[in-house]
């Protein structure tokens, strides 16, 4: 396949940066010139130099002329609005001037204020983008509100599970009997990887076999061909990226593509890749359902008892999902007449609307919808709001702390005739100026960090430069933050009585610092809670990661048997692999070691309680499986090729023994559908499902489907040495299939993806929360130190040591942090024990986590405050006392 090298593109973030300080009406021509120059430089100087020069050129566009032109364009709208509101335009300029001067005069405060706010706002914005991305999931599809997936609840022993696997005749039943409710009903196979070949080139691509109306239902955007492309038997629709990967720049239309070495298809269309925040986004090709059935004819023979396929549907307009759900509830059960085993599961069909697929796919053990990802959306929104609140608190605290300094200004303004409303406006315009500056910084911070954030959050988000909602939201954001941050100083400072202030007898009341203290306590409560949460999440993940898994993951790889050759040539393959000298053992199994795909009923044993419906995980293996994965035997022996009787033998795990209540399991008989099997061995529980759940009672046996090859590399051979040799064997023995392998320890690690993500996000938020809090503390401490300069001078003259003074200045803050700790402990205990309760296999909330968090916060506080208080304590009293 010829692939042309991609044309190099200049860094996108530089373009976005240009958008910040460049008037939008000029952007097209400027970017055009920049691109043209970039292309020339790529050919002349090479790509990396060209990129560097490009960025440099963009930075140089940050010129006063362009920025003032940008500001003029912005303020043209602003002054128009404000002239009709309570802010007179001419005064606004005066307010802004004064605000700028006061910012320039107190650079430390300004820096703390602006950077603290910017960091807080940047986090809130990142979270906002994330929430937006989550909430807009699947809205790409035009029939979003009418698309549903048919699913069912099954109940056994009072526990309900929810699944999307359904019996084959169900779709036809829905289609024929409920035409007024369903516009389309589509049978589909599980979305999974398939080997796709063009000539001799093979790729593993995720695909979906589905009925021909799918492109219509999903409103696929066709780049080539039409949505009718799936109606022809033996056709396939490729996504643009798949077409590119398979055919490069040549036209893929009508070319032949072979799927899984068995199905010949012709490309009848290319559709635009589905956006990342949609269901089906990983699907790279759609192929007709009938094609799958013709390659797997057994499907047509399946009746109502076997749940294995997916059904999607589009409702008729103005049909209520819940009504239809109720109507079709009993279809499955009704058709199971006479099959008592299946009837016992009490299946209930229901419709799961697309609007709930992503965020509301969690079901509890009573079958109620418990949300799902939506909980993280709430949690992170909450954290975002809190972090923003922390930043606003800093702003309010610093402003009120400085109130005494500005009291005289307020007094004079009032004496000269300012109305209180005008003073309020003045303080608000100050806070809006700070927020505005912080917002500019925020955009920069977000632009810089969004790629990293995407990586952590596993997203493909971008700043929504062109989205009007984004700007509307940002504007609202600025207004809200400005109001929130400015309200306290505006309302508090404007209340001062001019006479009192100007006479010089003005004293801020004894309790004036109380609100400030309360706010500091709030800040540290949030920070400490976040730290405790972070430690616990981390501990929980480590705990589960270190859980004994019952087998050996190291050097274990698995390969899906994606071609018929695997089934006929496995013995040759195994022999050849063993001959390479790098392979310890090779075996086959029905699923990979990290997954358990099937479970069955119909088992019977001595002492079984007849009222209990027993459901066991079942896994077919080849006799070498145990040796390959490194089973650990509690009793009995492994399967062996030497005993032909092992074809009716079981190896079971400990959970099975516990569930069955067997005393001496080895040698006992289990009947399956009446046939006797003998237990020959008991192994330690293998963690095949969720590492946070107890192991499922599982039965291993020899006869049955085998879909995976497990290969254990010798422990003293490195994977890098072994893999080429293994691949060579695969190429030789099964040339029709690619060597597409996965490491089991990586597969196992992937089970922690969600938790890992929460962990890194939580630590990120916790670090920033404590940073923002400390920034505020730093400002307050410096203010207090400054305010008490004279007192410190006198104390020093009278003989106080630096240590005394340090202790005096620090103890107030330490007390605040201790109070915060006292509040944070029960609050976080409550939330975290709830969070932990969702995991069966979980770590405990030990006391030291709280102690460590509290101690940590205390140390950080002392470090922050000490800097200022030691500086104040070291000050020469001659200087501080000279002026009086």
């Amino acid at each position, binding site marked *: 396949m010829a692939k042309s090298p991609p044309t190099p593109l200049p860094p996108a973030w530089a373009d976005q940066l240009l958008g910040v300080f460049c008037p939008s009406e000029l952007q*097209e*021509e*400027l*970017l*055009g010139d*920049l691109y043209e120059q970039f292309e020339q430089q790529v050919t002349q100087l090479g790509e990396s130099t060209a990129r560097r020069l490009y960025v440099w050129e963009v930075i140089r566009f940050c010129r006063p002329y362009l920025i003032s032109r940008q500001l003029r364009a912005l303020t043209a709208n602003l002054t128009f609005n404000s002239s009709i509101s309570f802010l007179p335009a001419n005064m606004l300029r005066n307010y802004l001037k004064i605000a700028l001067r006061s910012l320039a005069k107190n650079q430390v405060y300004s820096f703390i204020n602006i950077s603290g706010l910017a960091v807080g706002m940047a986090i809130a914005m990142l979270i906002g983008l994330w929430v937006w991305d989550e909430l807009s999931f699947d809205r790409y599809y035009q029939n979003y509100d009418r698309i549903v997936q048919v699913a069912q609840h099954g109940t056994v022993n009072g526990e309900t599970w929810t699944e999307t696997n359904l019996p084959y005749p169900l779709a036809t039943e829905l289609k024929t009997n409920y035409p007024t409710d369903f516009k389309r009903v589509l049978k589909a196979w599980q979305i999974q990887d398939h080997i796709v070949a063009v000539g001799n080139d093979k790729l593993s691509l995720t695909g979906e076999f589905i009925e021909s109306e799918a492109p219509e239902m999903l409103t696929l955007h066709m780049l080539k061909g039409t949505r009718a492309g799936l109606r022809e038997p033996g056709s396939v629709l490729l996504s643009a990226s798949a077409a590119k990967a398979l055919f490069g720049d040549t036209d893929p239309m009508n070319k032949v593509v072979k799927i899984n070495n068995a199905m010949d298809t012709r490309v009848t269309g290319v559709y635009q890749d589905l956006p990342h925040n949609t269901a089906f986004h990983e699907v790279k090709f759609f192929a007709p359902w009938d094609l799958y059935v013709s390659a797997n004819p057994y499907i047509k023979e399946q009746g109502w008892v076997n749940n294995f396929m997916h059904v999607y549907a589009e409702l008729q307009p103005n049909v209520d999902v819940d009504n239809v759900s109720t109507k079709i509830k009993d279809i499955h059960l009704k058709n199971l007449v006479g099959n008592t085993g299946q009837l016992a599961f009490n299946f209930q069909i229901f419709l799961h609307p697309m609007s709930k697929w992503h965020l509301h796919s969690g079901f509890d053990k009573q079958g109620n919808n418990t949300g799902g990802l939506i909980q993280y959306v709430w949690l992170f929104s909450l954290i975002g709001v809190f972090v923003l609140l922390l930043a606003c608190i800093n702003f309010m605290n610093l402003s009120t702390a400085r109130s005494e300094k500005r009291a005289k200004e307020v007094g004079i303004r009032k004496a000269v005739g300012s109305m209180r409303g005008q003073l309020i406006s003045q303080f608000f315009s100050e806070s809006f100026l700070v927020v505005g500056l912080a917002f500019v910084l925020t955009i920069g911070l977000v632009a810089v960090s969004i790629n990293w954030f995407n990586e952590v959050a596993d997203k493909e988000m971008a700043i929504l430069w062109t989205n009007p909602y984004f700007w509307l939201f940002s504007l609202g954001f600025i207004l809200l933050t400005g109001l929130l941050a400015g309200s306290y100083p505006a309302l508090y400072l404007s209340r001062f009585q001019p006479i009192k202030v100007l006479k010089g007898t003005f004293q801020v009341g004894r309790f004036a610092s109380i609100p400030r203290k309360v706010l500091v306590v709030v800040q540290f409560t949030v920070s400490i809670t976040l730290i405790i949460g972070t430690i616990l999440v981390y501990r929980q993940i480590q705990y589960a990661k270190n859980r004994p898994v019952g087998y050996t993951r190291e050097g274990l790889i698995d390969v899906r048997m994606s071609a018929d050759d695997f089934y006929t040539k496995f013995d040759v393959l195994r022999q050849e692999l063993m001959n390479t000298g790098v392979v310890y053992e090779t075996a086959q199994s029905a699923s990979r070691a990290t997954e358990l795909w099937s479970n069955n009923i119909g088992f019977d044993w001595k002492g079984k309680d007849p009222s209990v419906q027993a459901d066991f995980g079942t896994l077919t293996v080849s006799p070498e499986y145990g040796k390959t994965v490194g089973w650990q035997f509690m009793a009995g022996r492994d399967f062996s090729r030497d005993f032909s009787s092992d074809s009716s033998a079981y190896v079971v795990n400990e959970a099975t023994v516990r569930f069955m209540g067997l005393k001496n399991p080895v040698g006992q008989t289990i009947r399956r559908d009446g046939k006797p099997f003998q237990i020959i061995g008991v192994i330690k529980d293998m963690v095949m499902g969720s590492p946070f759940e107890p192991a499922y009672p599982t039965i291993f046996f020899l006869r049955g489907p085998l879909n995976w090859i497990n290969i254990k590399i010798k422990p003293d051979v490195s994977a890098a040495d072994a893999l080429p040799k293994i691949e060579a064997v695969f190429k030789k023995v099964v040339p029709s299939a690619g060597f597409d392998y996965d490491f089991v320890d990586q597969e196992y690690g992937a089970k922690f993806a969600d938790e890992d993500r929460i962990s890194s996000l939580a630590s990120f938020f916790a670090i920033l929360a404590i940073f923002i809090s400390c920034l505020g503390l730093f400002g307050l401490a410096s203010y207090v130190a400054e305010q008490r300069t004279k007192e410190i001078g006198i104390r020093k003259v009278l003989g106080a040591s630096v240590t005394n003074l340090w202790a005096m200045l620090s103890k107030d803050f330490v007390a605040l942090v201790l109070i915060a700790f006292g509040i944070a402990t029960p609050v976080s205990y409550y939330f975290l024990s709830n969070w932990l309760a969702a995991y069966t296999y979980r770590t405990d909330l030990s006391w030291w986590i709280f102690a460590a968090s509290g101690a940590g916060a205390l140390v950080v506080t002392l470090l922050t405050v000490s800097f200022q208080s030691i500086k104040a304590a070291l000050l020469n009293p001659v200087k501080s006392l000279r002026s009086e």
Partner: protein
Amino acid sequence: MGRTYLGEFEELVLLTVAILNGTAYGLAIAEDLKRRTNRSINLSGVHVALYRLEEKGFVKSQLGGAIAARGGRRKRLFSITAYGKRTLDELRQVRYDLWEAMPNLSLS
């Protein structure tokens, strides 16, 4: 001559616009200037000068057609106005008069 202020760099840019006669846009001007003057010229400087000149009425502009090389973006083509041309003429006249008024000094 009225009080028309034209910076040195602006004057160079304006001259280049006149030279390129209809094909002048940011990058072309920058490259032409680089070639003729041997100084390091950056795009942003040229663009800002062009916008200033336009605000002062020395040049006028219109958007041209899109080209693939520019990522499908259009270029803004600048051309000199009659007022711009007259200002250049006046400037040249002033310089010329000044040169004429210079006594023939021998400085060798």
